[in-house]
């Protein structure tokens, strides 16, 4: 299975509570994008209904669905933010 790889995905806020963990592991195909990551996350127990309105950050920058995810990237799912 050299054409698939695992990415560690950091979770925050409500996602962390729903998934019961602050980091989860998701498998992507080589060449996978943020959109593929979203699909994989939507199948994760607890997160199914909670991803709406979330952004994805790779290496600490918000990314569009077309952006490629690479092995070793720092990946985070960002629920709607509420600072202040």
């Amino acid at each position: 299975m050299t054409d698939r790889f695992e990415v560690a995905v950091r979770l925050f806020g409500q996602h962390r509570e729903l998934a019961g963990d602050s980091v989860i592991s998701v498998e992507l195909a080589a060449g996978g994008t943020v959109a593929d990551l979203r699909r994989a996350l939507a199948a994760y127990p607890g997160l199914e209904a909670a991803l709406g309105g979330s952004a994805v950050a790779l290496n600490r920058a918000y990314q569009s669905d077309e952006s490629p995810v690479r092995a070793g990237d720092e990946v985070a799912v960002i629920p709607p933010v509420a600072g202040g």
Partner: protein
Amino acid sequence: MTEPGSTRGSESPEGVLVAEITLDELDGADLLDRIGNESDGAVLVFEGRVRDHSSGRAVVRLHYDSYREMADDVLRDIASEALQESGASAIAVRHRVGSLAPPNVSLVVAVAAAHRRPAYEASSYVIEELKRRLPLWKREEYADGTSQWLGGQTPPVSQASPEPQTGQEGG
């Protein structure tokens, strides 16, 4: 708009005296003491404080969670942009995370400028942008023992870096 992300990974740009996420107690007076010089005719300090009510419910605590590593970068970017957009001369901003109670200070924005208008603009820019982009969340805890994560805004994709940059040339 200047590009978000333009200062990422660098030292704080000139005029950004402080831009950080902290667990420590905040006090606007601390930053007021540090900001402004003889060319600044306007100095403004904004304190955001935890309210004891929200949508008609009594709030006893507010818990802030953050993506600390990214939030420090984003806050510095926002502070830098605020100076460029407004022409203010200096800015210092701290956002507290952890467990807070009314009337704890959750946010301090201190700005110095030659005139009042850029000071107000810079202060307002920081608050509006951090509500859009700062990776930070809050859960309200109510007097009746229940709690909930608050909804917020979906951050926009960073225009300055459509793909993560590794610093390599070509490849």
